[in-house]
């Protein structure tokens, strides 16, 4: 029989309450708990060299407006959507074409990585490029579902849309991605 943990990890809700009460350690813990998932999401959504800064910006904005977090979606998902907006702000500053820069990066990577001759690696790179070229809402829904494994209810809550609309966006995204992969295959 295993003894109960004397100090179970605090829940997100407890850490959020801690931060609202001025506990900086609670904010640090939330960054460490969810930072890599947020970074993976933003990387897949088109962030590149600025990934560290974007993750920082997402959490900074989240903690600044923590009073608006209603808990409909998880804290992690909420931070992802804030990060997505920060990424869009960044792309607007650079100009829309920056969204497509992944393609160049993937080509460069494919020359330097000896393992990416495998079909799986090649497909992954082409998918990365294709995802970056999706319309924003389709990209967000696709990544939250396929990469993060969220259900339509939480996706709809996070993106301020309906479950039906989220399903439609996902359907369109899958169709476009399959077509893109078939074209480049």
């Amino acid at each position, binding site marked *: 029989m295993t003894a109960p943990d004397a100090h179970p990890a605090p829940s997100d809700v407890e850490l959020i309450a801690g931060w609202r009460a001025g506990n900086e350690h609670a904010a640090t813990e939330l960054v460490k708990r969810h930072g890599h998932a947020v970074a993976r999401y933003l990387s897949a959504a088109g962030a590149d060299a600025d990934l560290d800064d974007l993750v920082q910006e997402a959490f900074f904005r989240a903690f600044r407006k923590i009073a608006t977090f209603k808990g409909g979606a998880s804290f992690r998902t909420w931070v992802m959507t804030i990060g997505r907006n920060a990424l869009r702000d960044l792309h607007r500053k650079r100009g829309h074409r920056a969204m497509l820069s992944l393609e160049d990066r993937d080509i460069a990577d494919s020359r330097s990585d000896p393992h990416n001759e495998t079909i799986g690696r090649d497909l992954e790179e082409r998918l990365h490029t294709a995802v970056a070229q999706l319309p924003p809402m389709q990209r967000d829904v*696709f990544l939250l579902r396929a990469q993060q494994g969220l259900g339509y209810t939480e996706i709809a809550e996070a993106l301020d849309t309906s479950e039906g609309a989220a399903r439609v966006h996902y359907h369109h995204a899958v169709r476009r991605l399959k077509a893109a992969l078939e074209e480049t295959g």
Partner: protein
Amino acid sequence: MTDIDEQQLERLAARLGASGGNDVDLDRVAEQVVSRLRSGEKVPAHHRVWPWLVAMAAAATLAVPGYQWLHEIGGGPSARVVAAPVLDLLTGAELAEVLDSLDFSAPVTEVVTATLDDMNEQQLEELLAIMEG
């Protein structure tokens, strides 16, 4: 030609961003976030106010021609109808993306107030197809 099914797509998608995302130094990120919070730095004002401005712009310019469901409400097959329903659905950032990606030339003659909840899946697909060109 690559033949890929939806499950393969989802498995591939689950790995997207892993190499870059897992390299982020979270100790450093957390330290910088806390430092900015401690300094009293505020989120730039435009992040709080611009969705309202974008919504106003969208209400004035976003038009959807040729959509049967809106025609029924709009009162005629040649009607050009402002797609007010999306204003309830999209966030400010999403509205900005819509405005950035669309190039409407049709004159706006009528405004319809509705929500996307009034539309079935087929209608949503048609509307999305129109919006995406």
